């Protein structure tokens, strides 16, 4: 795998886990990481804020819209692999679990398991939720029809 695709896969996993509901992540984490190499905290988990930016007019120059609370963590496995995470909200456990999973993903023995047991269900959950929301919204679509008025 080239470095580029490895990074793209890593990003895909981090993105998917960040959007996952905390209790779902926690359940899958517990089910699947028994016997996994442990991790020690290198930084955090710590709660802070990021400035969230928009663009003027939607597509112009950036402006500062307001902040959002975030939590980030960095952990290291005994074998040296570093795992990072940063997620919206103030859930230290969630950030720590994701950082641990990010580190485990770097082990050949673990990448498959993390992808299959955590990342894929996270993506599936996100897809299902997006579909449900889209279909509920779709039901409120206005279907215009033209009334014929007057003669000819």
């Amino acid at each position, binding site marked *: 795998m080239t470095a580029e695709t490895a990074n793209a896969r890593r990003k895909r996993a981090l993105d998917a886990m960040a959007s996952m509901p905390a209790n779902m992540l926690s359940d899958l984490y517990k089910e699947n990481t028994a016997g996994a190499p442990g991790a020690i905290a290198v*930084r955090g988990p710590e709660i802070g804020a990021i400035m969230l930016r928009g663009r003027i007019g939607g597509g112009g120059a950036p402006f500062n819209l307001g902040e959002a609370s975030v939590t980030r963590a*960095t952990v*290291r496995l005994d074998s*040296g692999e*570093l795992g990072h995470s940063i997620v919206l909200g103030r859930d230290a456990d969630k950030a720590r679990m994701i950082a641990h999973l990010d580190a485990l993903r770097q082990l050949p023995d673990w990448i498959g398991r993390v992808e299959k047991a955590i990342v894929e269900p996270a993506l599936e959950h996100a897809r299902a939720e997006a579909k449900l929301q889209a279909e509920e919204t779709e039901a409120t679509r206005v279907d215009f029809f033209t009334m014929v008025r007057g003669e000819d």
Partner: protein
Amino acid sequence: MSVSINTRSEGHVFEGGFANPVMDSQGVFRRVMNALGEPGTVADLSGFVTPPAPLSQAAAAILLTLADYDTPVWFEKPENNDDAIGWMSFHTGAPRTADVFRAAFAVLEKMSPVEAWAKFPIGTSDYPDRSATLILPVESLAGGEPLRLTGPGIETEKVITPLGLPQGFEAFMTENRAAYPLGLDVLLVCGGEAIGLPRTTRIEEA
């Protein structure tokens, strides 16, 4: 002013930060505040962090406590400080700046030439706090020529004997004091210890 971290670096860029960030940074903050509030007293900042060379424990503890995303840090010799810069950025989010005029903190070299210090921001009359704090390493905090300190935070006078101050240091600090309320604040560091010399302190040869 983007933060870039050498991601190929081994653990030492990521490790050696505060073991307990909240308590440790508050502990260091208190000590640095006292060092600046009572100029001339030696603050013990050892044992909090394990920074990459050539950063001293004291300089590193000060950076990890005071530097953050909003405080650009200027390094006198960035080429010697790759790991130190990566370490600081990872732990604090503080960006390294190459622009001396924007420095909130300056990490100097031993015997840093004082003529170059005139470029650091000394604040404005509306915002005298928008000035740089200089972190200056010395050979030793004792054993040098005695300097008499007087001014706020010192009941009568205090004598310090740092070894390895750059040429013209006292003259520079006298001029610095004259600009009050504007000016630079200086922290002398050696190993795990630091001495605070704020802009209000009068420094003379004893």
